[in-house]
C-alpha cells in the first residue's frame, strides 16, 4: 500500500481535470495571442478560465493573473509592488512564518534600500495582532501574511489583518496556497489587494500559479516580453494548465463540504490514535483554528528525518520541517517562530491528508509509526 500524507507539498491531479485539459494539449493548441480563428478560440478559453477563478474568489476578472507557479506569483507581488511604489515608502512587513518565496524576494529588496521587518506569531501559531499594529508606520507600503501556514495549518483572520493594514495606509497580500478549499478566499469581502494560489495544491496541474492583483495600484513586472496578462506577466499562455487550474478550483469548491467533513474525521482519528498509542507526542500549533487536513507533531527524543526515512521504506510519505525541500537541512523557521524549545527542533513530522486519503491508510501509517518511534527511541541516547 502506498500512503501519501504529504498533500501540502503537492496533490494528485484529478482525472476529471486531466480530461478537461487534454484537448488543449493536442487539437486545440492555438496561441491565445494570435489574431486568427485558432487564436480567438484559445483566447475565449482563457477568458472563461479567468472568469471561473474570479467568480470563486469573488474578484474582478481583470485582476486575475495566471503565472507559472505560486513562487512566481509571490515574487512578482513582493518585488513588483515594492519597486513600483517606492515613492510612497520603503517599509515592508512580512510575517515570521511566510514561505521562502515571500521571504527571499523581501531579502532581495533590502539591497534596494527597502526595510523589511517580520511580524511575530504566537506560540499557538497566529499573528500577534498587538505586535503587528505596533510595527506599522507611515512608510509601510506592503504587508504580506499567509492565510494558512504551510507547516502547521493555522488559519489567520485575513479580513481583520487586511483592515488593520489598510487603516495604516498600506497594501495587503496574502499567500493563500494552503487555504484551498478549507477557507473561501473572498477578495472583495476580505478587501485584499494581492493573493497567491497554486493549482497543484488542489488537485490541479503543476506549473500554474494564480495571482490576484489589484490593478488600481502600480506593479512592476518581473517577466517581460509579449505583453500577456495585461502586461503584468509575459509568456505564451499555458492554456492546458490554465484550463486545468480553473477546473480544479471549480471542482474543489463544489465538493468542499463533503471533503472537509471526511478529512476532518480522518485527521481527528489519526491524532487520537497517536496520542493514545505513542508516548510523548506534542502537536505543534493549536488544534483548533488549523485546517482539518494538517497534523504537525513532535516525537520527543527521536530525529524527524529518521522517522521520515523509515516510514518511507514502508511506502508512507510524510515530511519534516519545511515542505518540499530535502536539500534544506536547516531547522524549520516556522517551528522556531512558535517558540519551541531548541532541543525539540529536529523531532517534528508534518502529516497532511488529502482527497484520496482513506482510513485504511491512516491505520497503516499509525501501525508503522508506532514501531518506528519505538525502535528509534531505543537507539536514542536521550532518555525521558
Amino acid at each position, binding site marked *: 500500500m502506498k500512503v501519501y500524507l504529504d498533500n501540502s507539498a503537492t496533490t494528485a491531479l484529478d482525472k476529471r481535470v486531466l480530461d478537461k485539459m487534454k484537448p488543449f494539449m493536442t487539437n486545440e493548441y492555438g496561441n491565445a495571442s494570435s489574431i486568427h480563428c485558432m487564436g480567438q478560440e484559445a483566447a475565449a478559453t482563457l477568458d472563461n478560465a479567468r472568469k471561473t477563478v474570479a467568480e470563486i474568489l469573488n474578484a474582478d476578472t481583470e485582476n486575475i493573473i495566471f503565472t507559472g507557479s505560486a513562487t512566481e506569483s509571490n515574487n512578482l507581488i513582493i518585488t513588483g509592488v515594492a519597486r513600483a511604489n517606492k515613492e510612497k515608502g520603503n517599509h515592508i512587513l512580512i510575517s515570521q512564518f511566510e514561505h521562502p518565496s515571500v521571504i527571499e524576494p523581501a531579502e532581495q529588496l533590502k539591497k534596494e534600500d527597502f526595510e523589511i521587518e517580520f511580524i511575530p506569531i504566537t506560540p499557538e501559531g497566529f499573528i500577534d495582532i498587538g505586535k503587528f499594529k505596533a510595527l506599522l508606520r507611515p512608510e509601510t507600503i506592503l504587508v504580506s501574511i499567509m492565510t494558512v501556514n504551510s507547516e502547521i495549518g493555522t488559519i489567520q483572520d485575513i479580513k481583520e489583518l487586511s483592515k488593520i493594514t489598510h487603516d495604516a495606509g498600506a497594501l495587503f497580500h496574502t499567500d493563500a496556497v494552503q487555504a484551498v478549499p478549507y477557507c473561501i478566499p473572498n477578495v472583495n469581502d476580505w478587501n485584499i489587494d494581492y493573493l497567491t494560489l497554486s493549482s497543484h495544491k488542489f488537485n490541479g496541474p503543476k506549473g500554474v500559479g494564480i495571482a490576484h492583483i489589484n490593478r488600481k495600484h502600480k506593479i512592476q513586472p518581473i517577466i517581460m516580453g509579449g505583453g500577456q496578462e495585461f502586461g503584468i506577466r509575459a509568456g505564451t499562455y499555458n492554456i492546458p494548465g490554465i484550463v486545468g487550474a480553473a477546473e480544479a478550483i471549480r471542482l474543489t469548491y463544489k465538493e468542499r463540504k463533503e471533503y472537509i467533513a471526511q478529512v476532518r474525521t480522518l485527521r481527528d482519528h489519526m491524532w487520537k490514535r497517536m496520542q493514545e498509542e505513542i508516548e510523548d507526542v506534542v502537536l505543534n500549533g493549536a488544534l483548533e483554528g488549523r485546517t482539518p487536513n494538517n497534523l504537525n507533531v513532535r516525537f520527543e527524543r527521536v530525529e524527524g528525518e529518521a522517522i521520515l526515512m523509515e516510514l518511507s521504506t514502508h511506502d508512507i510519505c510524510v515530511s519534516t520541517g519545511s515542505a518540499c525541500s530535502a536539500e534544506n537541512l536547516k531547522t524549520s523557521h516556522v517551528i522556531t517562530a512558535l517558540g519551541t524549545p*531548541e532541543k525539540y527542533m529536529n523531532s517534528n513530522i508534518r502529516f497532511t491528508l488529502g482527497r484520496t486519503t482513506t482510513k485504511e491508510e491512516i491505520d497503516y501509517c499509525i501501525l508503522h509509526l508506532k514501531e518506528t518511534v519505538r525502535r528509534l527511541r531505543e537507539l536514542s541516547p536521550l532518555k525521558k
Partner: protein
Amino acid sequence: MPLKYTKTVMKSFLNPKNVGEMKNPDGFAEIGNPICGDMLTFAIKVDNEKITDIKFLSFGCAANIATTSKMTEVVKGMTIEKAKKVTMHQLADSLGGLPKVKLHCAAMALKGLHMAIDDYNQKSNGKTN
C-alpha cells in the same frame, strides 16, 4: 534534489549493529547535542590496545545512524592505532557513498570514536601513573 541513500545505507539504518550502553566502559564519549540535530554516545572496551567491544546510541538522521553503525563494525577488533586511521571517506565508500550534505555524519562518528579513545588514554594513564 531529494536525498539519495544507497541500499547499504538504508540496510545499516534499519538494522544497526552495536547499539546500546555498556557497563564500566574503558572509554566513553558524548558528541553533538539535540539542538544541532545529532547526538551520539560511544562506549569502548579496550584490551591490549585493541578495541574488543564498542556500543553507540544515536539521536540522529538515517545517515547518522547508518554511518555510526558502520564505523563500529569497522573498528571493532582493530588496534587503537589502526582504528584512529580510518577516514570519513573510507566509511562513506563502505556504505556505497553518502550524499554530500551527509558526509559530516561520518566525520562526527569518527570524532566521537577519537574522543572515546582519548577518554580511555586519559583513564589508563591515570592508572599507570
